[in-house]
């Protein structure tokens, strides 16, 4: 769905390229998590995918970025934005109207969604984000978390083929963050939406993403399944990316020679793995004591 080839970009006001030699293929319907240290070029990567680069930020653009078969350099931003829905980092500036319902309607109206369908789409997206009760509220009176949910809902309602979200859960508490990720995963699964999300909360990424992309200093260091990426916990830490603790625990136990199963991505994985480790050892001990008894006998 998205194909980035030899992409290098330098903002006009800076001398150094912010991303370099990016090669990345994102298949349709996949859930991709991008993470990395601050200033590593994660946001720039999302701008390349939704066409904001090169259309809004000037600079030197090398290589090519194809979205749904369209070259982002040759396709206008308006056409691109009908394929790619974006949720940007600064929520206040993404919101263009004053009332929740109008914010939901804005994109739907512009993209010419049939008026018969609009109402159902608004209802669905608001319900999905759990903010149906806010429909008539003045946006200025909402909390940061509520605004963030609204910004996501207003893009979900457009049902784009690709969703690009830059830190969509920054203002949300753990429960709401989890809810957002579950929902994104559901859109990827049920609607075949390609989801690309930049996020610092690595525990959520490793649990939900099919592919984890680690950006370091403008280059892609890893682009693989979360399990394969998380196996490199030491290297990740060096470039300022931290693994979930359940992963770190099991990686350490693997290093200690206690555990030799697959990389654990979350608490459930770790619990199952540990039960197995402890079960085995219990069985081993039993065997050991049994043989001792036999010897005594």
């Amino acid at each position, binding site marked *: 769905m998205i194909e980035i080839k030899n992409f290098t970009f330098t903002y006009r006001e800076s001398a150094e390229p912010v991303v370099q030699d990016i090669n990345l293929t994102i298949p349709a319907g996949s859930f991709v998590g991008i993470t990395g240290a601050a200033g590593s070029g994660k946001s720039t990567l999302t701008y390349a995918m939704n066409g904001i680069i090169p259309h809004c930020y000037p600079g030197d653009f090398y290589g090519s970025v194809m979205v749904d078969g369209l070259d982002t350099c040759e396709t206008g931003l308006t056409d691109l934005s009908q394929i790619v829905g974006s949720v940007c980092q600064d929520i206040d500036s993404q919101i263009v109207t004053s009332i929740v319902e109008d914010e939901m309607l804005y994109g739907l109206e512009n993209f010419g969604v049939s008026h018969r369908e609009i109402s159902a789409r608004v209802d669905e997206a608001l319900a999905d984000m759990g903010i149906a009760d806010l429909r008539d509220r003045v946006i200025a009176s909402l909390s940061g978390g509520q605004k963030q949910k609204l910004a996501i809902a207003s893009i979900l309602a457009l049902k784009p083929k690709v969703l690009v979200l830059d830190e969509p859960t920054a203002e949300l508490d753990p429960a*709401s963050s989890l809810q957002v990720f579950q929902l994104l995963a559901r859109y990827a699964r049920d609607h075949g939406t390609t989801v690309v999300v930049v996020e610092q909360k690595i*525990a959520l990424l490793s649990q939900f993403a099919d592919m984890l992309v680690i950006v370091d200093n403008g280059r892609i260091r890893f682009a693989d399944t979360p399990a394969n990426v998380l196996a490199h916990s030491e290297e990740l830490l060096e470039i300022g990316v931290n693994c979930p603790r359940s992963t770190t625990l099991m990686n350490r136990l693997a290093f200690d020679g206690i555990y030799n199963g697959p990389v654990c991505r979350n*608490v*459930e994985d770790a619990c199952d793995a540990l039960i197995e*480790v402890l079960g085995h*050892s219990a069985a081993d*001990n039993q065997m050991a004591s049994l043989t001792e008894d036999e010897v005594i006998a």
Partner: protein
Amino acid sequence: MTIEFRDVHASYDATIPILRGVDFTVNDGEFVAFVGTNGAGKSTTMRLVNGLLKPDAGEVLIDGIPTTQLKTSELARRVGFLFQNPDSQICCNTVRDELLFGFRALKMDMDHAERRVDEIVAEFGFNPDDDPFLLNRGTRQLLALASIVVLETPVIVLDEPTTGLDFRECVKVLGLIRRLHEQGTTVVMVCHDMEVVADFAERVIVMHDGLVVDQGPTFEVLRNRRTLEAANLVPPQIVDISLGLSIMQPGLADTLIGSANTLNEMEAAVASAVGKGDHVTARPTYAPTAPGAEDAAGIVAPATTPAMFEGGAR
């Protein structure tokens, strides 16, 4: 310096109550974390501590004095407040001016101020002539923190100090906060990241729907899954694993695994359960902190306390 809330009710426009009778005490020199979902009333509580909001009913006492009886400047001398967004705080053209800002506002001795600023600049590794608006987000957050720290207030309040920061920046900010705490500063922090709470706080106060629903020593609270669930929270991962294993195999509840709270404790507990305990603790790689973390912090933690930040699962 102590902070005491006595049956505090508060609201923003008198129609929608935000706090509905909050009671707690933060003792002198403690490090207390407030946890809860969005809208539970944590930020409102913090605003009451530094007097930006006055209670509708009940009392907020700083060192025994109600905040209603303290002037803005008197409160500012007692309580330093780090806001979530550093952009609302930073307003000067150079890092140096930004650090001096509080001293000027409080009309304090400027010779002393200059000395303090020099110390802080060295400690944080700032360039005093940098333009704050050209720094990146993490550095701005550090600068905002520094401009509070420089005033040496006995209490520091932090409203989600890690939001928007990457792991390294997070380690750096929290490393500094830990040091302040070790030097005797009372620290009150609102934080969504349970791993950070588990690593740093001495005591945890759980808020839900405008009330304090649980409070106590960090792991006593964090292991209390039922109250956490009622407040829509999840324990930190290692505690979660420990509790999970105790349910899956009830026999484990009374073992070291059933009471392990940290990465190190859990690793050691599992190792000893499988009979490899000695083997593991002797291993040199068994460092509590990942090698990159301390370098990233750019500060050397005091030798007496190992850098405990095990790396948050954020």
